[in-house]
């Protein structure tokens, strides 16, 4: 097709469309970036008055005191959910990547995608009916951690699968050429090669667990005290509860704690996301 110079008027209109289009794109970005910055600003500003050493050294005393119980509680719940979900999710991801070409694999893939779309409150209600009431565990670490685990397993599985798929087949073949068994190839060659991707999956699941609220209200309950090591029949505190519940109190100290908890949650999510980026950057050199 021969190049032809367009007519000036036509070009003017095209330039205008371009200018409008690009401004629209910039505006869209600003519309999205501004609320995020505002959220960060609001929470940092309001959390400031609650920040002191006692925040990290004391448990919630009524509606004042610190957040130690909530911080450790969130850590326990997240650790618990990962201990349950990581083996299941990662092994599922291994299965999907290495053997999941058949009907069973695609069914699992499909189910796990659907499971990520199930609202967390529905899972919370399910756990409330089955674990808290049905099995009589009451509000507990176990009920909370299992609920979170059900939420994050599909993420872990799919992200692990993705990471394993990126491992070049040559590596696998090299393993077999050395006489390794299938299991050894997977455990010693494929998974280590995909480790940054798997770690990414774990970090992202951690971020999801840290920020979850609705399903925990009816599974983990809340406690003013440090976890005493019991898995059932003992409620546990967590940061998102403080945000949701303490903002509803008539005391300024409670509001400050709510914002401090929000700050810690956001900070954790931020750090985890930065971790993901560093991992991914190490994997793929900057381009």
């Amino acid at each position, binding site marked *: 097709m021969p190049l032809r110079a367009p007519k000036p008027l036509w070009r003017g209109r095209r330039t205008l469309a371009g200018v409008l289009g690009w401004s629209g794109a910039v505006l869209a970005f600003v519309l999205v970036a501004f609320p995020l910055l505002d959220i960060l600003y609001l929470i940092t500003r309001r959390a400031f008055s609650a920040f002191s050493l006692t925040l990290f050294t004391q448990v919630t005393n009524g509606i004042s005191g610190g957040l130690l119980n909530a911080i450790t509680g969130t850590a326990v719940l997240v650790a618990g959910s990962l201990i349950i979900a990581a083996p299941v999710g990662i092994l*599922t991801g291994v299965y999907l990547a290495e053997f999941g070409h058949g009907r*069973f694999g695609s069914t699992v893939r499909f189910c796990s995608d659907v499971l990520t779309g199930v609202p967390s409150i529905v899972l919370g209600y399910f756990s409330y009916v089955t674990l808290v009431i049905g099995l009589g565990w009451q509000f507990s670490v176990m009920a909370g951690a299992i609920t979170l685990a059900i939420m994050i397993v599909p993420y872990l599985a799919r992200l692990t699968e993705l990471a394993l798929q990126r491992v070049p087949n040559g590596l696998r073949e090299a393993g077999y050429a050395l006489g390794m068994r299938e299991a050894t190839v997977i455990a010693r060659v494929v998974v280590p090669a995909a480790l940054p991707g798997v770690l990414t999956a774990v970090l992202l699941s951690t971020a999801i667990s840290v920020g979850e609220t609705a399903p925990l209200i009816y599974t983990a309950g809340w406690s003013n005290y440090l976890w005493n090591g019991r898995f059932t029949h003992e409620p546990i505190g967590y940061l998102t509860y403080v945000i949701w519940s303490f903002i509803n109190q008539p005391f300024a100290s409670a509001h400050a704690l709510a914002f401090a908890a929000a700050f810690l949650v956001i900070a954790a999510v931020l750090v985890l996301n930065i971790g993901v980026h560093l991992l991914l950057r190490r994997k793929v050199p900057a381009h």
Partner: protein
Amino acid sequence: MAGPVSEDEMNNRSYYRLLLIGITALIPLSLFAVFVFLGTYSWPAIRFNGLHFLIGKTWSLGNLYANPITLHGAVVPRGARYGVLVFVAGTVLSSLIALAIAVPVSLGVAVFLSEGAPPRLRPALSFIVELLAGVPSVVYGLWGFAVLIPFVAATLGPGLKHLFGWIPFFRGPVGGGYGLLSASLVLALMVVPIIAATVRDALSKVPLEIKEAAYGLGASRFEVVSRVMLPMARASVIGASILGLGRALGETMAVLMVSGGALNYLPGNIYGPVSTMASFIASQLDSALQDPTGMAVRSLAEIALLLFGITVLVNILARLLIGRKGATARA
């Protein structure tokens, strides 16, 4: 499944493969378990409520202090009626409005991130959007409560009414900021990162040759994006939008804190209070527990089951669309 193997090795394999299959089966099993348990638990409510559940506008626990009565073979509080039309409408309306806002914004964001922004800044700017996806729901609620609600009540609501008052849905009292508009805005903010990330990835997969060919034909940079790249990413856009819809339908805490929690009536305009199914479950379990006959809690489980069904269907639709895109890409 991979190639012929000796019987010896087959035996060796079977142990850990069975283990893997067993673990892998947990995902479909838990999905199945959620369905079965919610279904079983809510079965008495399903039988009692019948079709009224879907078409009734009134949710009333009845008189919990009077002695319960027997109705249609079930023991329920006097005057109890469980209709969820208002919550279904609130859920669908808020999600659709959120999507109507989020899709164009996401396209803009995706285009900006993949083509518009200076290449050096792109990773940092993308990170901002990714972070938005990581902000927990309850923090959005906190922000909505402290910042968005006053803004909608004092500025955005009156402004929209002034500009679009000629459209019936934008007319009428602006109210206090708690309502459909605020819920939709928060939901939009929450689904933009999902859609934008998917579309950005799809845009980045457009082959360089095609872009170069378009430039060769004299297309401007914006025309390459709008006439060539976006159309190629259409399937992704649709799939991602439906995924976003799925997320919006089930969102709980943030909506609970800004939606105004309407009971028994449909919103008269875009500023009016609404309730969504998810936020209603979260806020009403407490009251339902006061019903000694247990029918209220089972009816809430029926809402959870309905929400489960809707989100599963929406996700299946999204996956089918994205799957089809995948198929064409491979072809």
